[in-house]
């Protein structure tokens, strides 16, 4: 079979070669100036540039129209609204620049398509113009920098809420574990040399504050409207804790403890009732039906967002945002680390 394919390709090459010989001979190869660009070429491709621009812009708006509803739903975390507002402002600015610049580029490419009757204007420089388009971007960028840094500093600041929830996200190839402080409000120390058996996270047996820590696999719960302070660790390679619905992300780096904080503002149940989410999930379930998969409901997710090996594409954990009451109930049902380890 493979031999046949090879043979077919070989024959095709020979046929193409013969065809080319005929074309070459028929046009008297050495005398033509096929490469020479004439007015007809300029006209055709100048117009081509204009048509391309129109199609390009139509394609752009078509995509926005078709795809924008598939973007992530409104932020489930408080700080996410700052990010989204900043995003929108910057994005509108970018789209305007994108449209204007491409318009002039392709517009000029069309309007000044060459013709032997014309001559170009000798216009080597203009200090005024160059000044204008150095200063205007500089001013625009100053605003972008100021607002960007203001929000960045607020978002990356330490958690100050006295009522905060502290948890740890622990990454390994290819699973997540969440650890809660337990009754004492403190995460126990860890030592990677003590990882063994049920002590999957290497909780230090010398530190008593680790005994009441609570571990959660597969899914973890958080209370709504309380600041969550997350410490992140990794066991083996770099992972990244990506919680796109909260606009939250931070790498988990072996040998380091990294941190991120956010405040959930919608419970999972509330989020499922937001019109945007209903619409989004309808689209997803429609597509799933085509594949013969069962419909799903919206869930907050934790994904890995730094290449970490073979199953990087499937390193996930559900996040459930509960009301305070439900959260406490759930937490009370979880077993403390010591009871797990002693088994």
């Amino acid at each position, binding site marked *: 079979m493979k031999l046949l394919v090879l043979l077919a390709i070989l024959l095709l090459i020979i046929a193409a070669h013969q065809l080319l010989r005929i074309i070459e001979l028929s046009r008297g190869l050495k005398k033509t100036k096929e490469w020479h660009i004439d007015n007809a070429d300029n006209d055709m491709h100048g117009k081509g540039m204009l048509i391309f621009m129109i199609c390009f812009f139509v394609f752009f708006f078509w995509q926005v129209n078709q795809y924008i509803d*598939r973007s992530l739903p409104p932020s489930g975390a408080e700080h996410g609204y700052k990010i989204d507002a900043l995003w929108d402002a910057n994005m509108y600015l970018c789209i305007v620049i994108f449209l204007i610049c491409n318009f002039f580029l392709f517009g000029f490419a069309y309007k000044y398509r060459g013709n032997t009757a014309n001559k170009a204007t000798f216009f080597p420089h203009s200090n005024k113009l160059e000044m204008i388009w150095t200063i205007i971007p500089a001013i625009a960028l100053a605003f972008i920098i100021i607002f*960007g840094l203001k929000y960045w500093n607020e978002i990356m600041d330490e958690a100050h809420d006295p009522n905060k929830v502290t948890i740890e996200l622990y990454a390994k190839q290819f699973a997540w574990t969440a650890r809660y402080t337990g009754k004492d409000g403190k995460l126990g120390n860890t030592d990677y040399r003590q990882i063994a058996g049920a002590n999957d996270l290497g909780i230090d047996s010398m530190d008593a504050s680790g005994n009441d820590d609570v571990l959660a696999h597969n899914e973890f719960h958080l209370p709504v409207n309380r600041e969550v302070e997350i410490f992140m660790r990794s066991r083996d390679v770099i992972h990244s804790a990506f919680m796109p619905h909260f606009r939250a992300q931070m790498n988990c780096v072996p040998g380091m403890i990294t941190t991120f904080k956010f405040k959930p503002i919608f419970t999972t149940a509330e989020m499922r009732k937001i019109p945007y989410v209903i619409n989004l999930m309808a689209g997803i379930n429609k597509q799933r039906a085509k594949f013969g998969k069962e419909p799903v409901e919206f869930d907050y997710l934790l994904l890995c967002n730094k290449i970490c090996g073979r199953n990087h*594409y499937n390193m996930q954990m559900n996040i459930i945002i509960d009301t305070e009451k439900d959260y406490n109930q759930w937490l009370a049902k979880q077993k403390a680390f010591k009871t797990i380890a002693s088994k």
Partner: protein
Amino acid sequence: MGTKHTATLEHEHALHHEHAHDHDDHHETFVSKYIFSHDHKMISRQFLITAVVMAVVAMTMSIIFRLQLAWPGEKFAFINAVLGDKWGKDGILDPNMYLALVTIHGTIMVFMVLTAGLSGTFANLLIPYQVGARDMASGFLNMLSYWFFFVSSCIMLGSCFIDDGPASAGWTVYPPLSALPESIPGSKLGMTMWLVSMAIFIISSLLAGLNYIITVINLRTKGMSMTRLPLTVWAFLVTAILGVLSFPVLFSCALLLIFDRSMGTSFYLSDIYIGGRPLDNAGGSPVLFEHLFWFLGHPEVYIVLLPALGITSEVIATMARKPIFGYRAMIGSILAIGFLSFIVWGHHMFMTGMNPFLGSVFVFTTLLIAIPSAVKAFNYITTLWKGNIQYSPAMMFSIGLVSSFITGGVTGIILADSALDIHVHDTYFVVAHFHIVMGLSAIFGMFAGVYHWFPKMFLRMMNKKLGYLHFWITFISAYGVFFPMHFIGLAGVPRRYYTNSEFPMFDNLVDINELDTIFAIIGALGQVVFLFNFFYSIFRGEKAPQNPWNSNSLEWTTPMANIHGNWPGKLPVVHRWAYDYSKPGHEQDFVPQTVPLAEGEHDGGEH
């Protein structure tokens, strides 16, 4: 001093040249002419053809993983035919091989094609020609540079044929994934070969870069002041300086990784438990690697981009029959971009655990770089204004470059903003951004260069109609692949996922992924048109005239014979800048640099 030095060299060259004339035919063997050549024109062609081969390999890889992304789980005879039963069993791509393919695709494209292929080809071809030199300052080092590159490419390709597969930790090879063989099969022998290949590549790049810098500074012909240089040469010069200053840092970065991998050091490793046991390494930090890597990694973006911008500056001015608008501002922008590119690397690391305050500094410097970039884009557009645009395939690719530079550039403003980067860091939004602004722009610049200077390289013309066809297919499909990718990123899809089908939240993106892949396949098939045109025209294209594009710069004053020493007699003397197109008071719409200024005429570059 400079002049004296130049004069001496000129004298030596002239002597050598006469000597060469007498014996040329007798002493030039096949090996010295085609293989271990010292001639910049031959080395340029060697770089180009090697890069074309590497580009085809990297492009094929991209088609394989695009197939997987659009139709995960489908069986493709193509995948099985290319990868065999080990990695493409029944035509389904292996997840480890997927990571290997994206890694090698990135490495080859960034380093072998767009660094060596672009700079190596066009800096080699154009620097001696356009500054009016007989050859590079050191032909021998230049030859070594190519052969180191060749060996490096061979090792990189060779790593695809070993048992454990090639490096697969992403082209950025962050440790510990790249340091620990237990973490992924690609971090066994494949990673060693990757590092060896890169170390050799860096040697090649340094030899080449030093040569370019010395040639531009010392071997300019009489009258060729720095402000009369074509912008291509300025771009190559700054590119070479960036390479010389930043590649050694990548070398040390790779060297420390080699130590960690094979000698038990702990530069990047600490507190790791893998393969069922804790490792002894303590005190290292992967963040150190990231700093060292991106200290090269970011200038690298401009090492890739600047030559493409230089090429387009030249092509746009020539084909619009107008001087490039704001020549000095263009030089200033190149210098500003070059300088700033060294102090922005941290914008790749906002989410790595680096101190957020340090992040703010990088936000500031990164957004500054938008200013010279914007100036360049506006100057290109103004150059077209009231031009008399001649649509050669090179000109079309140049306009394509300006478009992709704008389209990809604006999303850079978003990604540079650390607060927004939290949202899209490492998602497909980033993949779309850098493919458009860096990948497309650089490859369009490379195509523009090939179409424009093909007659200088191979003394024949490429077929125009096939060139047009190639441009439209490439341009349309390139945007078709990468524009919709932004929306995949907005839906939160992380990069380097073997499949998105494990997440219900991504199920509604299937049609966008299919659209991307279909355009990718069309685009790849479009390159067959180019490959055919390229190789066919080398041997059977129409014979080229001396100055097919009516261009001003010096390379078009050399005879169409690729002779040793470039000019048969004395070196040309330069009287004006390279951009006197459609200058009032001249009959023709171009005035070559060798034409003396008329009485009372101002040099365009100096008023």
